[in-house]
């Protein structure tokens, strides 16, 4: 039962953060790989799927609250999808260890930038 309940609880907690767009998925990935013993490739795949119901729910609320902007979405999404296809293809062609350090560095940069980025 705990095999189900623990992931469920973890998914719930990170789901709240995902709806806020603050990296719940990343946290989930970290928890899965470091604490729940899930292997990197599976964790990444689960992470991608997991985002869908959580973000979906969040998006319904964001739309109701009038936060979504057509002008942004229309321009960013098509290019995002194109890039995602290529990047996902590349990722599944590489050994996961290759991506570990770049991922870590990327996270650090993003963290520092988020904390100390200039406010407007």
């Amino acid at each position, binding site marked *: 039962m705990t095999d189900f309940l623990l992931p469920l609880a973890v998914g719930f907690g990170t789901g709240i953060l995902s709806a806020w767009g603050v990296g719940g998925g990343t946290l989930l990935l970290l928890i899965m790989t470091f604490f729940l013993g899930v292997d990197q490739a599976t964790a990444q795949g689960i992470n991608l799927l997991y985002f869908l119901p959580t*973000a*979906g729910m969040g998006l319904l609320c964001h739309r109701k609250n009038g936060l979504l902007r057509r002008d942004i979405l229309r321009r960013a999404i098509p290019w995002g999808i194109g890039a995602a296809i290529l990047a996902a293809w590349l990722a599944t062609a590489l050994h996961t260890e290759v991506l570990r350090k770049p991922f870590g560095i990327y996270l650090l940069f*993003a963290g520092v930038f988020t904390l100390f980025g200039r406010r407007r």
Partner: protein
Amino acid sequence: MDNKGKLPLCGMAAGCVNGLFGGGGGMVLVPLLRQWCQVEEKQAFANCVAVIFPCCVISAAVYLLRAPFSLTTALPYLLGGLAGGLVGGKLFPSVPTVWLRRIFAGFLLYGGVRYLL
């Protein structure tokens, strides 16, 4: 460059990260939207979710195609995430944005260190 030119690049950056690292992209997209495209903070977070969503669909499809994994393992996370997403969406307008940034940054830094060690 006005936003017309910037937004496709932002989308691409998010898509790249999303596909390469199996999720996310928000960490790159939120700062880009806020600082480079001058989008208001709450909107930046919300629209980031909206952009990442289709990227995740596509990335997930590619991953399942190329490196299949067990969907029963994924199931509890998905269910938990569904419930959490609903709760999170309802709470979002009341969350002070400074906390959004702090939570966000905290996880990034923690994750970065763990992945490098």
